[in-house]
């Protein structure tokens, strides 16, 4: 109808291109920068929009060979995998219970869990740093493994409640009539149907753990145990010396895979937000 008018189509594209440019520009600029030779980059008179000398992979190579970047990546991956497992173990049963077993209390419990999500790390990092120290976990990845589910479990539960509610009750009730216990009915019928929801939770839990900055900076002091998000800006900047090409390479190499993963799962994520958000 309206969208077929050529004026509307053109103006939509113009608006989209402006937004895409604004959103992606810092990353585009970072990508462009990471291949620049020092002499090209740090000469004030040079036009910054060209390669005045041939692009070079040197600084990307330096990032991998001469910095702790790969250690950060490995730590982030390890922490992410463990936290995903913990998050699923906590939030799948809880979300199922809220969606199916708590009757009219369900909505209130879902809201309570969501309110835990609203308590920010900038408020909790002080007592948590004391708890982490008392447990002898400071400067280990286990400090982050311990606290990251506070970022991920409430949100995951909230998403999963929506997904579970969107699965008709009849399905596991039929299985229970057929003689399965509730637990095996859930494992056999509900969880397979919830796989897309579970995948969404895995992706976003992983991304949330990557995104944290304050806990990693507050609890971790040595490069060996840093995550990407804290390690790159804190450890790779020595004093006032910035290795801009390598820093930009690190930012881009993390940003692109994460954005691709989000893009794949965005529709389900949004559906989950709407489900969780509308029903409370």
């Amino acid at each position, binding site marked *: 109808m*309206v969208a077929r008018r050529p004026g509307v189509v053109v103006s*939509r594209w113009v*608006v*989209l291109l402006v*937004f*895409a440019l*604004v*959103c*992606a520009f*810092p990353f585009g*600029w*970072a990508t462009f*920068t990471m291949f620049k030779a020092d002499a090209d980059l740090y000469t*004030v008179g040079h*036009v910054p929009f060209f390669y005045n000398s041939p692009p070079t992979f040197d600084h990307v190579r330096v990032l991998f060979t001469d910095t702790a970047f790969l250690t950060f990546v490995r730590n982030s991956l390890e922490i992410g995998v463990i936290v995903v497992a913990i998050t699923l173990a*906590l939030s799948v*049963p*809880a979300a199922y*219970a809220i969606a199916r*077993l*708590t009757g009219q209390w369900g*909505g209130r419990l*879902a*809201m309570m869990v*969501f309110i*835990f999500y*609203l*308590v*920010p790390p*900038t*408020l*909790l*990092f*002080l*007592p*948590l*740093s*004391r708890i982490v120290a008392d447990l002898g976990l400071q400067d280990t990845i286990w400090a982050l493994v311990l606290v990251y*589910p506070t970022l991920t*479990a409430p949100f995951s539960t909230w998403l999963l409640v929506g997904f579970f509610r969107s699965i008709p009750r009849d399905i596991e009730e039929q299985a229970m009539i057929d*003689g399965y216990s*509730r637990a*095996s009915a859930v494992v056999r019928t509900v969880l397979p149907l919830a796989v897309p929801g579970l995948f969404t939770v895995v992706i976003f839990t992983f*991304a949330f753990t990557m995104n944290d900055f*304050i806990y990693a*900076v507050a609890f971790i002091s040595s490069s060996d145990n840093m995550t990407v*998000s804290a390690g*790159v*800006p804190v450890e790779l900047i020595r004093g006032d010396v910035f290795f801009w090409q390598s*820093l*930009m390479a690190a*930012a881009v190499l*993390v*940003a692109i895979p*994460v954005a691709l993963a*989000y893009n794949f799962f965005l529709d389900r994520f*949004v559906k989950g*937000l*709407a489900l969780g958000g*509308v029903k409370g």
Partner: protein
Amino acid sequence: MSEPAVHRTVIIDESFRVHHLLDRESVLGPVMLSPLLIYLVALIGLPLVFVFIYAFSDATTGSDSFGFVGLQTFQTTLEDPVFRIALRNTVVFTVLAQLVVIVLATVLGFVLSADFRGKWFVRFLILLPWTTPVALSALAWLWMLDSLFSPFNWILGNLHVVDQGTPVAWLGQDSLAVGSVVALQAWRTLPLAAVILMAGLTSIPPELNEQAEVDGAGFWRRFFDITMPLLAPIMMVAILFGIVATFTDMAAVYILTRGGPGNATQVLGSWSFYTGIQGGSLAQGAAIGIFMFPVLLGVCILMLRRASQTEVV
């Protein structure tokens, strides 16, 4: 058909013995909920109580002992000029950034809700500010706004808007640094808001708009009388996410400006971090953080009210 029936009998027998208790919903529900609730109470609930205890004490990171000092810590905090700047900035940054986001996210949600070729790639580009860890995107901004090598400075210099010898110090002047932080916060919270609004727009039945168009309502009439009222609840969700993300953030400020120049861009989150971790005063850090509480409480109440409204419907 007879074989599965035999199989079923066996399972019923087993379930009566093993799962008897767990089959009662009043037992199974709490059992499934308790690990999450225990974890959340231990690592969010109790620490939150500790924040308040610290704030009424003289606790430091160095020693385990601390005494209660009543409101003295709050008094010191309120008299600290940097705290006042931080409090004001936190509110101002959040309000300005989210005002920008409301307007831009509505436009972006609109254009993204249509189907078009290349949508996948455009969406990928638009999602980048939200999906990238904030510390890394702040780093990209730091380079983009570099006083010597910023591309904006080159453009402005060559257009002779500014003198080529004196580049704009985007992060070195109070007002520009404030603007830069607001821009970064709006930029990084825009995609999620747009995506949520896009979902809201696609859930509006197209018949409503078509019928109104047949009845002669123009685009703006339809926008304000149909789309906006239907979009309002989900718009609130989008903005609440944005408010929480901006209001409680410290990474953007920490990396982009380190709170500077001077302390002109300090926010509650960053000032609490500098005072509590780097300054070693748990009490002061906690007292600063507590000033985030009224706003967070307000957000919680709005969420609860929204939830109770939708439950009625």
